[in-house]
């Protein structure tokens, strides 16, 4: 339990965000070489936990949802956390508790599951899945900040840019599987055409592939804000001077991929290093 999570995802409990979580899991499953059955179990159970947060944690209000994914030696652990009312209290159903078949589904598909109310509020669902044949990934050291993502407060809290999605991911192998999926999903939500989504995938590939040498710390941090046909992507924290190299990296001699495929790109100083800020727009007629 000492090791840091491979993925930390912070988003609001909007229903459409469950798809972002599922895409993260599909990416992790792909990276670990899980078979379709294992991947389906993982997706189904974690979706139940997330749907619970969507429907019951905040009594119809918007609130934060945190998902952490750990690649273990012989399994995958996923922790879904909210800051809403606990599972024990509340008014629905007799005897309190959250209704539905979510919990039995989670219990049936996991090696181990627990439903707890941490002292500082909310609910934490911990799930562990047996994946005996998973490919090992590089262990991840270092601590992960209180919330995921580069800069800003965590999405879904106090209504501050509630639509944003923040992500931290390590190591590079998982970043390469997860980043394109997350960015494609958000681009799809922002009504990008498939043509432009393909560009977004190329950018995500570059960022993930070049992250290892550029990031300040163990995890690649990313924060994405959406507007119609527009994505704003913040990458960081990066080592000083690395934003520029990420920006101009990539096609190695071609016009730099990131610069060519984005509509605005800027390196901004942050704390000890810097962040790379990208804007991707779909300008089709």
């Amino acid at each position, binding site marked *: 339990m000492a090791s840091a999570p491979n993925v930390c995802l912070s988003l609001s409990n909007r229903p459409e965000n469950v798809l972002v979580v599922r895409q993260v899991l599909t990416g992790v499953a792909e990276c670990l070489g899980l078979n379709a059955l294992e991947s*389906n179990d993982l997706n189904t159970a974690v979706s139940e936990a997330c749907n619970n947060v969507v429907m019951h944690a905040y009594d119809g209000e918007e609130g934060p949802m945190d998902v952490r994914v750990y690649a273990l030696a012989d399994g995958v652990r996923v922790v879904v956390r909210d800051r809403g009312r606990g599972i024990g209290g509340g008014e629905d159903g007799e005897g309190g508790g959250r209704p539905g*078949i979510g919990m039995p589904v989670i219990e049936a598909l996991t090696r181990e599951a627990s439903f707890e109310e941490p002292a500082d509020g909310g609910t934490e669902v911990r799930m562990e899945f047996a994946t005996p044949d998973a490919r090992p990934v590089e262990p991840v050291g270092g601590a992960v900040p209180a919330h995921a993502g580069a800069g800003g407060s965590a999405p879904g809290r106090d209504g501050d840019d509630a639509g944003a999605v923040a992500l931290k991911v390590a190591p590079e192998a998982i970043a390469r599987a997860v980043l394109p999926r997350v960015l494609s999903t958000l681009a799809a939500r922002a009504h990008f055409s498939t043509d432009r989504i393909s560009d977004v995938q190329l950018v995500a590939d570059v960022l993930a592939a070049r992250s290892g040498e550029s990031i300040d710390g163990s995890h690649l941090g990313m924060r994405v804000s959406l507007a119609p046909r527009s994505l704003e992507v913040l990458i960081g924290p990066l080592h000083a001077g690395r934003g520029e190299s990420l920006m101009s990296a990539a096609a190695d001699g071609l016009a730099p991929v990131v610069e060519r495929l984005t509509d605005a790109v800027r390196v901004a100083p942050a704390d000890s290093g810097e962040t790379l800020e990208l804007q991707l727009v779909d300008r089709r007629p």
Partner: protein
Amino acid sequence: MPSVTAKRPSSAGSGSSTAKDSRQLFARWQKHGDPTAREALVRQYMPLVRSLARRYGRSSEPFEDLLQVASLGLLKALDRYDAERGHPFASFAVPTILGEMRRYFRDSGWAVHVPRGAQERALKVRTAQERLSNEHGRAPTVNQLAEYLEYDTEDVIDALQAVEAYETLSLDAPRPRADGEVVPYGATFGENDARYELVELDATVTAVLKHLPARERLILRMRFVEDLTQTEIAERIGLSQMQVSRLLRRSLEQLRTLAHAG
């Protein structure tokens, strides 16, 4: 951290009066073999079965087959449930029904290869993407594709990623152009065509690029030097946009690998 495992939520069918009715039905079926009682229970719990099949077998095809498998799980649970223990039926039935569906998927090879449904969907998404592009003169959005194909947006997003994965779909096969004419690659440019050499190269990159086939170099040039969209590139060289996307991703990946190796 107080554990609340003792406070599991009440599940479907355990409400006061329904619970009593169910208990009677279970007694009539399990003790007396009364088929009308079983039928009543099946009717009562079919929504649970449907809901589980939808959740676990999301977008598996054909859905009706899976529903039948899940129903079989319900029948088994009806036989084995012990009402005297006081647990709600649903919490007993869920693992039984899921177990039945998992076995079905395992038997259909899900544990060893990519489910056929997913491959077929990827292919259909590609075809629909081309059709809609041709009709509207621009690439469709994921929502448009999902609506057109009656798929979840998730299926479409998976398909866009999967283009990379399914070599078996013969994504390299020549595609007919909008005018219906099929253009094989060899007809549009030669393998040794030097006209498409890329500008802005330094020595090491030139060496690296030489490892890429002419077609890939051409696509890279069109996208990054001429700044054509992927749809425009697709139209010019007789590929689908998704093929262009895949070739671009692969080429850039190769360039990265080669650059690092050198």
